[in-house]
């Protein structure tokens, strides 16, 4: 017998963790983030999956639009998500390893301190591996805005990581 496997499984194994990371930023709640990924991926794969390949940017865009729709339709959800966000920073969405050195931990703390709009650009560029053009279309922003936010984010991280290494518990309000 010839064994076959649906292509979406290998596609999702490659991109699923990155999609979930982005969804975590859009949903502010781990459970809603999973729902977002599921809904967005199923919709896009139903439309284009028969071709055997789907551009990841399409799924990121679907996640973003669904998140906006859901947030608009449920005001109470927003309040709950914002509360949850304070408890579950983005750094908790990364693999934890005991070997992770102090510099990586400082980097994650610095990422948590970034403004949301810079964090989502950083996520799509670094882990989503999208181009600036794709990020601009995903977030409905201009190319210049995306490039600026990315540059600002990197500059802040470059400045903050040494601070985090010196003082692991800085006063966040002053940043």
């Amino acid at each position, binding site marked *: 017998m010839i064994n*076959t496997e*649906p*292509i979406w499984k290998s596609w999702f194994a490659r991109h699923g963790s990155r999609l979930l990371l982005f969804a975590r930023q859009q949903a502010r709640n781990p459970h809603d983030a*999973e729902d977002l990924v599921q809904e967005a991926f199923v*919709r896009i794969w*139903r439309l284009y999956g028969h071709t*055997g390949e789907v551009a990841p940017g399409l799924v990121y865009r679907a996640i973003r639009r669904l998140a906006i729709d859901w947030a608009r339709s449920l005001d109470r959800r927003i309040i709950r998500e914002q509360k949850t966000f304070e408890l579950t920073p983005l750094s908790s969405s*990364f693999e934890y390893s005991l070997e992770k050195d102090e510099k990586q931990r400082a980097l994650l703390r610095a990422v948590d301190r970034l403004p949301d709009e810079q964090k989502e650009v950083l996520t799509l560029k670094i882990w989503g591996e999208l181009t600036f053009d794709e990020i601009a279309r995903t977030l409905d922003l201009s190319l210049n805005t995306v490039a600026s936010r990315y540059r600002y984010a990197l500059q802040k991280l470059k400045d903050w990581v040494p601070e985090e290494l010196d003082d692991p518990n800085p006063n966040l309000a002053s940043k």
Partner: protein
Amino acid sequence: MNEFESIEKELKSLTPKNPSPQLTDRIEQGLGDAGNLAMRRLPEEIKSPSASVKSNLTFFPWLGLGIAASLVITFLSVYFWENRGNEQFAPSSVRSTSPQVSLYEDPESPIHGVSVAELEAQSGMPVGGWLPTFQERLLDRIDEGVISRPGRLPARQVRMHYIDEILWQHPATNKRILSTQPRQEIILIDLDLY
């Protein structure tokens, strides 16, 4: 040189957590048939020995006549043996794939009135003892576009082309016969509009 190259490299070294298996299961359920439209063959199966046997067999077109004749012979043999009350024959796989086939005498048949022994002698092949193996092969899938359905969501129509293969094997004589039959299936995938 990019002044942020080092920090970008450090960021890329961080690995996002993988989705839970439950999420993957939920997606599989959500996709339904749409998840099975694009398939890839697993690498280790490409060199499947059964595949090479089949491809070799397909190079012999003259086998077509033999296949048809042997199928008729096999079904007739089941019929004859059952009429004789012989419970030893009739493998379970034959029963399961063709339950209670109603056989009847066909005067137009070229083997009408020919005994099993005569058939064996003329064809040079045994009548009983054949073991069938069924396999479905996906040949092609054609996206026929989005169709509208009155009062319902539009759907994507996909036509699947299959070949159903039955490989008849006779362990005693080490003979094999491959029977193939084309089949089409049309799948409609509901499309969400948003």
